[in-house]
């Protein structure tokens, strides 16, 4: 090899070396974890990204850091995305999860657990005593996964109820919304009308968001199904359980509502409830603050249980829209993370949750504990939700939950909105697809 050739090759070799060195550094940097060997615990906590919960988290973290300067916590709201579940699954895959997150939707826990992303909480010595002190008897069992572990501590709950316009129901001759389907639809015939006399209906009984987004079914089909079936499960032991009379009756109720024209066939770009276009809709306690802030003068509203089939007589169960707290397996400080979790679910933290976020902590003594009495005195609208909290159910724990709700949602649209299928056919079709999904 002559000198001239060698001279030409040097820049190439140099460039190649730089390239490979860069790749090596980049690959090393992608690890994302602190490898400095520091022995000082430091936790990362992700709360939900809405302003109220960020404010709550900021206060709680400041208090924790004041009390525990040896275990500082860094708070960072869950990064923006379509859903927290999407962010967390991506973080689990990339091993970039926080130590603690308080926006865990139980419907996704089975998936997180299967990915080995969560720490089993019963491994902590005082887990049982915390559960006994805080939760209603037996509740924790509904959060136990098929592998026998519990990966989440129930934190807050938002029971779905019927929010109604008192004046509109009163004008139709009702003090509160009727409790059964037929009576409720009957009330709808009186409420639904053309108010301004232009020949077009502009006031309806109940708003139903009929779009096929799977999660919208928690606020119509699922809340009504739980009420009709007294808390019946959709799936258990990978067997489809919702092909039953309760589901058929729920589908029929919505189909009749659209057929009678008492549910509007439109999704409004404005708040139809506050504008008096609809007399009711389903929602959770988070909506109280919104209504209080934006309601027109003289606007009267209240809350009622979800209507049930005509044969039903017991107080209905409803969807709880729970959000829980979990510790991720990427944590280097599980004991400290558990202590922080206990701090997040303490009595005082729960009072802050009520005051700042208008959301209910999952606490068996919520209505009896004197610490919260003052809050409920000054927020009487929250009492209906607190009373309903004991009769709620979560979404269930099957990894394919989203897909199953998607299948139900499509049949719901086809049967209830378009009336292209009978309720029996639609429920059967949804169940068949769910079986295929679970196969």
């Amino acid at each position, binding site marked *: 090899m002559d000198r001239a*050739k060698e001279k030409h090759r040097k820049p*190439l070799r140099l460039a190649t070396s730089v390239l490979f060195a860069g790749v090596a550094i980049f690959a090393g940097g992608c690890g994302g974890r602190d490898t400095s060997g520091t022995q000082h615990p430091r936790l990362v906590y992700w709360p939900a990204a809405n302003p109220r919960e960020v404010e709550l988290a900021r206060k709680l973290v400041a208090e924790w850091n004041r009390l525990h300067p040896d275990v500082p916590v860094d708070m960072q709201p869950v990064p923006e995305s379509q859903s927290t579940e999407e962010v967390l*699954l991506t973080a*689990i*895959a990339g091993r970039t999860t926080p130590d603690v997150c308080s926006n865990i939707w139980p419907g996704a826990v089975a*998936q997180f657990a*299967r*990915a*080995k*992303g969560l720490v089993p909480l019963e491994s902590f010595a005082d887990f049982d005593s915390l559960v006994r002190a805080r939760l209603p008897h037996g509740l924790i069992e509904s959060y136990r996964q098929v592998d026998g572990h519990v990966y989440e501590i129930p934190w807050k709950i938002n029971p779905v109820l019927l929010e109604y316009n008192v004046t509109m129901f009163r004008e139709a001759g009702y003090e509160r919304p009727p409790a059964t389907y037929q009576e409720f639809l009957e009330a709808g015939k009186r409420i639904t009308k053309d108010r301004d006399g232009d020949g077009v209906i502009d006031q309806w009984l109940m708003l139903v968001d009929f*779009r*096929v*987004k799977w999660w919208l079914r928690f606020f119509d089909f699922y809340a009504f199904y739980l009420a009709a079936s007294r808390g019946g499960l959709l799936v258990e032991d990978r067997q489809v359980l919702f092909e039953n009379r309760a589901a058929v009756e729920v589908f029929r109720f919505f189909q009749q509502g659209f057929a009678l024209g008492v549910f509007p*066939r*439109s999704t*409004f*770009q404005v708040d139809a409830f506050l504008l008096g276009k609809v007399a009711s809709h389903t929602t959770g306690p988070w909506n109280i603050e919104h209504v209080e802030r934006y309601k027109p003068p003289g606007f009267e509203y209240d809350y009622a249980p979800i209507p049930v089939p005509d044969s039903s007589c017991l107080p209905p169960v409803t969807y709880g829209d729970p959000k829980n707290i979990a510790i991720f397996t990427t944590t280097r400080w599980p004991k400290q993370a558990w202590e922080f979790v206990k701090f997040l679910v303490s009595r005082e933290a729960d009072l802050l949750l009520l005051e700042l976020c208008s959301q209910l902590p999952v606490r068996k003594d919520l209505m009896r504990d004197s610490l919260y009495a003052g809050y409920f005195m000054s927020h009487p609208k929250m009492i209906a939700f607190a009373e309903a909290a004991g009769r709620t159910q979560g979404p269930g724990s099957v*990894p*394919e939950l*989203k*897909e199953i709700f*998607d299948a139900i949602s*499509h049949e719901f*649209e*086809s049967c209830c*909105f*378009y009336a*292209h299928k009978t309720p029996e056919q639609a429920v059967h079709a949804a169940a068949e697809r769910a079986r*295929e999904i679970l196969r």
Partner: protein
Amino acid sequence: MRGLRKRNPRGQARAASWMILPYALHFLVFLAYPLAFTFVLVFHRWDVFTPMEWVGLANIARLVRDEWFLRAIWNTLVFVVIHIPLQLILALFFALLLNEKIRGRTFFRATYFLPVVVSGVVVSFVWLQIYSYESGLLNQLLALLGLPKLPWLTSRALAMPSIAIMATWKNVGLYIVLFLAGLQSIPSYLYEVADLDGASGWQKFRWITFPMLNPTVVLVIVLSTIGGFSLFIEPYMMTDGGPENSTLSAVLYIYRQAFDFYRMGYAATLGFAFALMVFAVVLIQRRVSEGEAA
């Protein structure tokens, strides 16, 4: 160059190797590897977070039974059948207009091209307002004319044509540019000769413009076929595949399987099947076009 090659052919080959290295790396990392990996996925169940599980031909068996995928393919074909002729005719029509010496020609050319560079998400959002049943621009126009409102996006019959119209509006500017380029490459003496022979405007279009534009027409058809089969943003943003799956496109369905339900293996199977179908359609289209040209 010839002298250089003679002097050092091995050195030249080595230099050429270095020059193709960037593309070769790009090809391997971003095309060959993902393609091979996707093929492997066809025979596995994988949710990204847990280890892959070998399932043999189960994904293919599932595909054969999957009515929703067949529905999605049918919907995509319906879209393509509406979208391509509409786009071809409109693009050609506007290109012919914009090829004339009219006042404000540059402004019009820019205006027609504008939707092409606007994000599909933004365009979908704007059209969502236009198609709104209660307060949309179109229904307000119908009301002014004393006509009943139309459920543009909530009727099974209207939803896909509505999306096709919107997609045509968004993309037509690109094809206008292609046709303009084609029109400007037609030698002017052909038209001069036709003028001398007393040809009418239609005769000039039929016997000169259109035949000379044939390569552009083929290009536009192939590009809009591929674009049409990739239908995703519009139904994703505007209808979520509804009503009753009537706007569920094949790509949207594959996306849902992969990124909503984390069925990567099944999504890979659907992707392969769909890619083969598009490949076959484009191949047939080319054969037909070439046959006609010959």
